[in-house]
């Protein structure tokens, strides 16, 4: 009895492993090992010296056993990742693998992980990171969904209409907004199960008790389960529609014809308001407004009509509200960052040229810059690179670049990963922060 009482022997695919119940306990109750050692099942195996046979891959078992022992995931080059993931799923350890694979997101510590090449014929429209490390990519009328293992799921389409925007409601559900097809109820907005590509329901715009066909543009989500979209309908349905994520029912509609074309919606948690931006080149001028649905009115607005045209023409190409500093950050086609004060009406853009330290490679097919915000870090894409800005003054701190695939047409951050979609070559890159080594 002097020796360790909790020693356990496994025979996995012919190789014998010896470990302890303590190590296996790290797998948790909700796993193969957790169930195996539950009291209800141990009647057969009261004898400790006996070995358990598991019909599995010994290489993978060894990697997973190391993961349970140390919390660290190391995948040797000779083991295919897909095989490891499949084995991990068998043991109920897939979440252990996922959380050990990459660490908490930090824009200044990103490491290029992988590129995925698709088969889509057209240019990329949008890429959106899912909450658990997967992503959805829109090309033309199709949306391709990948899980965190970068396994592709069945593609999604809404009556094969051109996709304008995508959004993740949660890890299982994706909303896409598309153009309408004249004279039919096709297009609009739909909610899909991400793993199966199955359409769960369509979002309707109802006007005067009649369901109208419409084109859905930009999407945004609020934490109280609301979905916002810019809408253009046949008759009067121009404005911002609001739906309930859970029921799919339309709960509000803000009629304002100028908002139907909006390129960007952003829900502002602190203010309980929605930012709506319509940008060049969709319109000749740039309009930014903030809507308060409780008061049913526009509480703030800005446009560059009548702004002085300076020597080098500066047009706002993307805008994002930074609530912490009460400002809206904008970017022009030269990747100059500018700031508009949200606390006053009619203020101008305070351009900061410090950000333009160097431009990336000018490519044959340039893309307009885009902005993203993640936990106080500001990200801006320009040509084939993404710049990271930190601090209240938005100081440039890092630059991410991969020269394959041409310029970046869209990028997205979520699930502790950054996805960058290239306009040519139909490629997207994944960037992650390495997990900490204890």
């Amino acid at each position, binding site marked *: 009895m002097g020796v360790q009482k909790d020693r356990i022997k496994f025979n996995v695919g012919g190789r014998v492993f010896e470990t302890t119940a303590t190590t296996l306990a790290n797998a948790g109750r909700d796993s193969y090992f957790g*169930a195996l050692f*539950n009291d*209800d*099942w141990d*009647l*057969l195996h009261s004898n400790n010296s006996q070995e358990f*046979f598991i019909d599995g891959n010994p290489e993978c078992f060894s990697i997973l056993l190391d993961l349970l022992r140390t919390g660290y995931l190391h995948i040797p080059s000779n083991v295919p990742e897909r095989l490891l993931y499949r084995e991990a*799923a068998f043991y109920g350890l*897939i979440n252990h693998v996922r959380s050990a694979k990459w660490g908490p997101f930090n824009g200044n510590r990103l490491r290029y992980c992988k590129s995925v090449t698709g088969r889509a014929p057209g240019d990329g429209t949008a890429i959106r990171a899912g909450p658990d490390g997967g992503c959805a990519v829109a090309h033309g009328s199709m949306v391709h969904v990948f899980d965190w293992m970068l396994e592709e799921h069945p593609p999604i389409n809404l009556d094969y209409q051109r996709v304008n925007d995508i959004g993740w409601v949660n890890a299982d559900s994706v909303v896409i907004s598309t153009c309408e097809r004249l004279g039919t109820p096709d297009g609009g907005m739909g909610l899909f199960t991400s*793993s199966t590509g199955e359409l769960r329901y369509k979002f309707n715009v109802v006007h005067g008790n009649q369901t109208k066909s419409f084109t859905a543009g930009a999407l945004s989500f609020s934490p109280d389960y609301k979905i916002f979209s810019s809408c253009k309908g046949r008759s009067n349905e121009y404005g911002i529609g609001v739906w309930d994520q859970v029921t799919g029912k339309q709960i509000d509609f803000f009629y304002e014809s100028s908002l139907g074309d909006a390129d960007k919606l952003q829900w502002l948690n602190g203010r309980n308001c929605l930012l709506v931006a319509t940008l060049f080149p969709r319109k000749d001028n740039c309009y930014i407004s903030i809507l308060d649905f409780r008061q049913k009115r526009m509480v703030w607005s800005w446009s560059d009509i009548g702004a002085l045209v300076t020597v080098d023409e500066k047009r706002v190409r993307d805008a994002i509200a930074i609530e912490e500093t009460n400002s809206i950050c904008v970017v022009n086609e030269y990747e100059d960052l500018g700031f508009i004060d949200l606390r006053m009406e009619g203020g101008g853009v305070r351009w900061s040229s410090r950000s333009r330290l160097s431009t990336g490679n000018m490519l044959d097919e340039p893309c307009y810059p885009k902005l993203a915000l993640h936990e106080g870090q500001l990200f801006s894409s320009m040509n084939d690179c993404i710049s990271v800005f930190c601090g209240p003054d938005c100081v440039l701190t890092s630059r991410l670049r991969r020269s394959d695939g041409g310029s970046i047409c869209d990028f997205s951050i979520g699930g502790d990963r950054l996805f960058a979609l290239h306009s040519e070559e139909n490629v997207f890159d994944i960037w992650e922060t390495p997990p900490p080594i204890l």
Partner: protein
Amino acid sequence: MSNQKKRNFQIEAFKHRVVVDPKYADKTWKILEHAIDEIYNHNASGLSFEELYRNAYNMVLHKFGERLYTGLVTTMTAHLKEISNSIEAAQGDMFLEELNRKWNDHNKALQMIRDILMYMDRTYIPSNQKTPVHELGLNLWRDNIIHFIKIQMRLLNTLLELVKKERTGEVINRGLMRNIIKMLMDLGSSVYQEDFEKPFLEVSAEFYRGESQKFIECCDCGEYLKKAERRLNEEIERVTHYLDAKSEAKITNVVEKEMIANHMLRLVHMENSGLVNMLLDDKYEDLGRMYNLFRRVPNGLSTIRDVMTSHLRETGKQLVTDPERLKDPVEFVQRLLDEKDKDDSIISLAFNNDKTFQNALNSSFEYFINLNARSPEFISLFVDDKLRKGLKDVSEEDVEIILDKVMMLFRYLQEKDVFEKYYKQHLAKRLLSGKTVSDDAERSLIVKLKTECGYQFTSKLEGMFTDMRTSQDTMQGFYAKYPELVDGPTLVVQVLTTGSWPTQPSATCNLPAEMSALCEKFRSYYLGTHTGRRLSWQTNMGTADIKATFGKGQKHELNVSTYQMCVLMLFNNADRLSYKEIEQATEIPASDLKRCLQSMACVKGKNVLRKEPMSKDIGEDDAFFVNDKFTSKFYKVKIGTVVAQKESEPEKQETRQRVEEDRKPQIEAAIVRIMKSRRVLDHNNIITEVTKQLQSRFLANPTEIKKRIESLIERDFLERDANDRKLYRYLA
């Protein structure tokens, strides 16, 4: 051996995967179905977890997830139907036992099935929007057992019956009860609420409705409250033992409504035992219970408060208007203080020192104290009594306590200026007669009045104390200048500032020659040191100590008033004096003289004079002699003056009038102050503001305010607005 078996199985499974046996899914499902059967039959020891897990895994992997899931639903439903029959077959008390046992079995089976089907639970179910295995197991149990028509009502009735038994004092199996209730809660809060809580509350309401009706017919109020409290505690205890904690508020609400809210008025007004009786008998425990129970229901406390207030007002009114009480002011105030003490201790001991109750008490006192216009006078008399004699042998702290209590009554007075008037009179008497017991106590009360009403209120009272001190110094100076006077009669003079003291009708009498000489000497001394002053003698307020030798040689020292001294001194030169002669010689006002003679000739033990004819009253034709037979045990004899301590009716009228006169300038001053800052104001607002400003002193009468405004208009301080007659303007 099992190891061998597993190997065999694994090889077989491998072959299936390669060959893709068309019956693969059926065969695999049969194995799993068999395992589920064995688990429900308590026969799981022959099962291999590894084998079953991999079989379930393979089915999902080969796209038979749907098959596996529906198979599970079917098999589990079948087992639950069987279970429902065995539960239904259980007789009597065994019903709950069986239900509980089967529930435990089902939970264990569910856990094992979930272990086997874990891969399906984690992959197939979320991506196909199915119900997870554990939740599915609970839902099936709910639908097949709890909502099975033959079980549902029986379960509810059994549970309610047990609760009823417990309420009637029987002991029930609380552990079993707890397990069953816990099961309902595990099935979801809606199951607990619909299948138990709602009917439970309804039945409870009915139970307590009946019981409270029974109790209220046969119990007195205190007893009833005791029973209600016990029931309430029992229900709270029941919740902690076997119900959902969230039910506590609901069930206590039922008890509160049925046992208290519905009978509130009847309880409060119950004959011989209701709230008023509890208050009268100081039943702190019952009152506290009533407070704690009634505070739980809407309007409960206000009901108690209203009844208490009207009771206080009623008893207070009786107290202050009882003509018997008016005879003894000290007793009158003492009764008020006792009543206040009694009510205070009820509020602190039974009513949790509730602020709203304290306010009700204060407003009640304020109400009835002012019902009697003599309250200010009586309170002052009470203080006078205490400060004259009542504070002897009382510690300093106790003095403070008594004074604080008096101040509390004072606060209730609306006519504080009337009190001031009386207080001044009484204080003057105390100071001049040297009757005050404790200078500290006097000053302490002055300080209290000052903090309550401000400097103005007490400045004159403080002036009286100053006069007393300076007089002492003056007398020392006088005798230091004339040391030869020490041998003769001693004169002590108190110089009082006019205005600080209550004005007295000045009627100087003729003093005996030796005294008037001395007085003259003092006058010239005083005026010599203080220029520009005028002295007038207040002979009606003085006292004198005189030595007297009576017929048989008995010697006494008599302590008398100045008037009495003047009369007695006349007998040094005469044996017999008629009333007329005395009046002529002394020039003492008739009423004072009569009282003075009465006290010396008609009071037993103090009759230093003899009167002819003998009678109680003094007549104009009476004659007086020295009473040679006067005896007393004491060497020193104090001869009082027959004075009513209380005011006589005309005096009262006079004081009243003086108070009214004094109010006039105060009202006028307030009007001018207000108008000076507001310039223009309408009539109603002036009335309100003046009343507010003067509140700390007295309650101003609107008619009087109006009169004062008119007087001010006549004297050109104010004018009426030419257009709006209701508007007044200030004229600078």
